[in-house]
């Protein structure tokens, strides 16, 4: 038995080691130049692949930005349009109102006139500005009530003439009507302050004054009369005996908002309008605006966490073994290859039996935009880590053929999974070693850019159901195959590396579940989610011997949503 067989070094080994181990030889002078050239080429290719990734990311961000911008413009322009319709602009209205007979009018009539003119103004937003009428109490009582409309040029039956409409370039005119309240000397700063106070038998006299007489009282009371709805809802509480009269006046106003109101000597209390009527009236007058103001904001932000199981759907095929055997015969070394072939077959059987989905998860930050009452557009950015696992007892060393130069590049010792990537087998290209069972984990990390739609339905006051569907672009940022065996090298491909895996994958997802509104702004939801990838994991599945399926995940989507601006 030789010393080599006994793994015992003798004099020959020591002599060769002593002479050769640390010996040196000078390489040719141009070797460094060749290495330098290779490094430069490598850096350029890395730079290019990185640039491609950055460009894709930039394009995706740009699309998202444009989408968000377009939706914002659509939303805000629509909102502004509604606001301009709902708000009365006194300077731009030209309503017609008749002066009261004998220059006297009661406060409810003045209110009704105000509402009528305001309604008309809302119907004719394009008309030019006119004057602003103001009702003021006698100087003694100090009541000043502005009316946000007046006739452009009118003459009352009693001969009280209001000035004509003020041209745009003229100073804003506010003609004042004086209301005499001889018996009630209270000084209501605003109509709200008068709530519950009866104006019965208080005669209000109108008188015109020059524009210069209009004082700051108008400014102080203006907010109260900005909308007719406010005027009505601010009316006094019920309890008066003149409810029916007030109702009639209001109904008349509603039937014919632009009608000329003729003042009468009949006096009544504005307290007469009941709460219910006030609300109905408010809804009728500004129903659209009311419903809008009570609705939620269109924008939401949310975060979702989805633990899931990932099926990578990469199988093993008999073709792989057939190929190996065929090449073995060609090579003229059947003994070695058939031995390796049997072991590879065992290894692939083991792979097929022991590969299971692993725990995976995704995390998304989403921005939602309500397209309709129950339909929401969702987009954002996410991170997904998909994992599959297997157990193996074999170590495979493989040298796949490189078609371009008819060469072979050796892979590090690996599990049975890796040869599935390639169809390049050659006689001594597969070496299989059986070892103790070890775990293998396949991990794929993606940056995701999702976009989708979510429909929400009502279940109860706080509960709702949802169904969502969407697509996502998944950018592979890292793929790793890790083995718990020290002899097997881990395989890791970063985003810039040349890897057999697809750099960008498209996926579709569908989910449904239930949600609960925790408050006006915050809601949580949970439900199962299925995410299927439209492509295989491998970039070139046609070149792989193993059958390539499309991976998918099944998980549980848990989300928290926050309505932006709710409660405004």
């Amino acid at each position: 038995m030789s010393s080599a067989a006994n793994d015992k070094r003798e004099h020959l080994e020591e002599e060769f080691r002593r002479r050769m181990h640390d010996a040196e030889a000078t390489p040719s002078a141009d070797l460094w130049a060749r290495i330098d050239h290779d490094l430069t080429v490598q850096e350029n290719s890395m730079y290019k692949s990185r640039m491609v990734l950055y460009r894709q990311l930039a394009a995706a961000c740009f699309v998202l930005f444009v989408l968000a911008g377009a939706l914002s413009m659509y939303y805000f322009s629509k909102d502004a349009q509604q606001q301009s319709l709902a708000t009365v602009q006194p300077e731009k209205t030209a309503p017609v109102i008749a002066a009261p007979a004998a220059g006297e009018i009661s406060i409810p009539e003045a209110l009704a006139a105000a509402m009528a003119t305001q309604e008309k103004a809302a119907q004719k937003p394009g008309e030019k500005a006119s004057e602003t009428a103001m009702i003021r109490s006698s100087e003694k009582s100090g009541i000043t009530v502005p009316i946000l409309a007046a006739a452009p040029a009118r003459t009352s039956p009693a001969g009280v003439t209001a000035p004509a409409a003020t041209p745009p370039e003229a100073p804003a005119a506010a003609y004042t009507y004086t209301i005499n309240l001889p018996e009630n000397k209270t000084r209501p700063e605003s109509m709200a302050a008068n709530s519950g106070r009866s104006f019965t038998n208080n005669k209000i006299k109108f008188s015109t004054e020059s524009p210069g007489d209009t004082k700051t009282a108008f400014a102080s009371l203006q907010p109260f009369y900005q909308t007719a709805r406010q005027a009505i809802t601010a009316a006094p509480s019920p309890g008066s005996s003149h409810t029916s009269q007030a109702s009639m006046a209001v109904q008349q106003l509603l039937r014919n908002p632009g009608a000329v109101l003729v003042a009468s000597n009949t006096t009544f209390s504005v307290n007469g309008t009941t709460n219910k009527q006030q609300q109905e009236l408010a809804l009728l007058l500004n129903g659209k605006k009311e419903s809008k103001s009570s609705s939620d904001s269109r924008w939401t932000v949310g975060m979702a966490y989805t633990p899931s199981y990932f099926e990578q759907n990469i199988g093993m095929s008999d073709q792989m073994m057939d190929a190996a055997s065929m090449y073995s015969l060609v090579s003229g070394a059947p003994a070695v290859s058939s031995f390796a072939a049997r072991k590879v077959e065992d290894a692939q059987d083991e792979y097929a039996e022991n590969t299971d989905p692993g725990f995976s998860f995704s995390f998304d930050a989403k921005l939602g935009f309500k397209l309709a009452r129950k339909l929401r557009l969702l987009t954002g950015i996410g991170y997904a880590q998909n994992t599959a696992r297997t157990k193996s007892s074999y170590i495979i060393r493989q040298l796949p053929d490189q078609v371009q130069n008819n060469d072979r590049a050796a892979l590090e010792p690996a599990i049975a999974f890796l040869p599935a990537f390639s169809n390049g087998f050659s006689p001594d290209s597969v070496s299989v070693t059986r070892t103790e069972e070890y775990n293998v984990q396949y991990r794929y990390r993606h940056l995701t850019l999702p976009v989708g739609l979510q429909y929400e339905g009502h279940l109860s006051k706080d509960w709702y159901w949802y169904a969502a569907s969407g697509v996502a672009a998944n950018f592979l940022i890292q793929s790793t195959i890790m083995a718990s065996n020290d002899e097997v090298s881990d395989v890791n491909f970063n985003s810039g590396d040349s890897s057999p895996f697809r750099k960008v994958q498209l996926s579709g997802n569908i989910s449904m579940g239930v949600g609960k509104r925790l408050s006006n702004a915050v809601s949580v939801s949970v439900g199962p989610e299925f995410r299927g990838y439209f492509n295989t994991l491998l970039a070139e599945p046609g070149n792989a011997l193993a059958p390539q399926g499309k991976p998918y995940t099944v998980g549980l989507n848990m989300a928290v949503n926050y309505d932006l601006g709710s409660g405004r």
Partner: protein
Amino acid sequence: MKLFTKPKSDEDKLIEGCIAGKRDMQRLLYDLYAKKMMLVCLRYAPTTFEAEDMMQDAFIKVYANIGNFKKDCPLEFWVRKIVVNTALKHLRSKQLLTVSHEAEEVSNISSDNFSLAGYSMEELLAIIQSLAPRYRMVFNLYAIEGYNHKEIGEMLGISEGTSKSQYSRARAILQNIIMRQEENYKKHVISS
């Protein structure tokens, strides 16, 4: 304040420079190990041209993977390991590892009185390069690199027993070559 931080050694700076892709540092690393690694390649490659190819690929791998160097062994050892692995892959890619049984019978000779003192480095290289690729590889790995047969079996994808038998044969061939050369030398000296 660097009171509590270990000052960086020159090797650390060299490694960091290579990780950062600094070409001057890469050149420095090359200059440091090129000569030793060239001889390693020459031991495995049948020709100088192929040895330089191996060197080129090996150093590209060194630069690409130096970020994974864990400093649990000397840098030279790590570089040498990469060079050896690259050499093995090269020989595999050239399909030079097929075992061809030598026609002539060789016998194991005791190496107790064995001496290489009279051989130059070129002569020793020529002797090693005269071996068949598979034998040359096993001999290099066992006798010079110091791997055991189990490791060699794993590296070459052969069994431990195959490695032992191939080494035994390689050793015998080498001894015979050296013996023949010594006999020829003695004959030449005596005749002259």
